């Protein structure tokens, strides 16, 4: 009897395990666009077993840079936009680069603002902004000359205004 109960529990567990993995896969492939599992529970929970590894083609390098403007006492004027060495101030790196190098960091204003505030704190600038440098990658060599170069501003803030902090409990 115990054996049968254990078997039944094992089957239920395996069905739940396989079901969740399949749900992640189905949503991932968007087989049926009208069926969105996320709608069932209000938010997307079917991503934890979803993998997309080095799938897309990206032929360009994209490098965000922080820049700041400073009040110059000598001239009583604001400076030009100046490079801020964020990598020296916040040196933690992942395989994907620095935290702010991820498109999910600079592509979401509520996330980006936190990194802009860090740049304000460290630099003492009056305003900071992020600029994205983009250029075509060159195969077969480590030197990557800036071919087909372009840049665009990703957003900025005036220092001194602080965005709301996390609402959770500070552990």
């Amino acid at each position, binding site marked *: 009897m115990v054996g049968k109960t254990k078997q039944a529990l094992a089957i239920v567990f395996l069905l739940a395990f396989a079901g969740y993995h399949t749900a992640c*896969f189905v949503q991932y492939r968007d087989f049926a666009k009208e069926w969105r599992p996320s709608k069932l529970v209000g938010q997307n929970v079917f991503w934890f077993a979803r*993998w*997309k590894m080095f*799938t897309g083609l990206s032929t360009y390098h994209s490098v965000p840079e922080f820049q700041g403007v400073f009040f110059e006492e000598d001239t009583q004027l604001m400076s030009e936009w100046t490079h801020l060495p964020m990598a020296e101030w916040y040196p933690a790196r992942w395989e994907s680069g620095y935290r702010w190098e991820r498109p999910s960091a600079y592509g979401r204003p509520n996330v980006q603002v936190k990194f802009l505030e860090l740049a304000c704190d460290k630099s003492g600038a009056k305003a900071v902004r992020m600029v994205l440098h983009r250029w075509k*990658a060159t*195969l077969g060599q*480590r030197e990557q000359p800036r071919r087909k170069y372009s840049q665009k501003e990703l957003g900025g803030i005036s220092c001194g205004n602080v965005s709301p902090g*996390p609402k959770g409990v*500070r*552990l």
Partner: protein
Amino acid sequence: MIDRFLASERHEGWGLARVLWVGAMLVTWLQRGLYFEERYTDAGATVLRSYIPVTDYYYFSPLGGWVTYGILIGSILLVAKGKWVRPMIGVALLAHMMLNFTEGMNFKGYDRLMFWQGICLMVAPGSADGKSTGMPVGRYCALITYFGLYAQTGWEKLANEPTWWEGLPLMYDMVHRNFGDMPLGVLISDVGWLMIPMSWVTLVFEAGFPVLWCFKRVRPWLLLAGLGFHLGILLLMNVPNFTAASLALYPVLVLPADYLRYRNGVLAWWARVRSPGNAVAS
């Protein structure tokens, strides 16, 4: 049929799998100890991300972060030692998740893979030491995880990125500023006659994995190809943690008897390599 499907087995591969999982977790988390406070505490940027906005519920001070990190490393070491294996895997997974969710930006694919592998180890027989007998639930979970891992990414490449057949994504991955830029990878990135077949092999291996695994004669070659695939990634690209995590449960992707056969074969080969004279004499 269910009796046969769930028949008890003793899979000695679990012992090696547990060691490899511990290794992958340690390789990953010891690196993250560098600049830890910037990564995981409010000494860096505490961001609110979608999916699960955990910083609405909790976030870490430097002290709280370090305590959680200490608990994580301690529990992994206890798993390595074989002490309270199941509860300690549970503790390690909880700390692993708490830290990753708080950071929000770099919850890597291999972090999620190591989570699922931890679940597989928790439902493995005994203390996942390869000495106990039990239902093969953990092995089935490992198979489901690897089928999903490879098939999703392979089928996505086939369905949505036709340039994989021309080798282009792989070529440009090799010169990616962060994921690539390894000397050998950069060197071969424009060698079409090498990169195009490598792309094809990647597509066939990933997309075909669940199907090819079902053929018993193909299975050892498939897993050998997987080993080569991940070691190749280690050599050519800058994603070492992914390689460590991906290979962790490979020992239990074969049947128990096959594992013993392959293991004994490798050990015999190693003995011959170490002392060729003895092998000739015997």
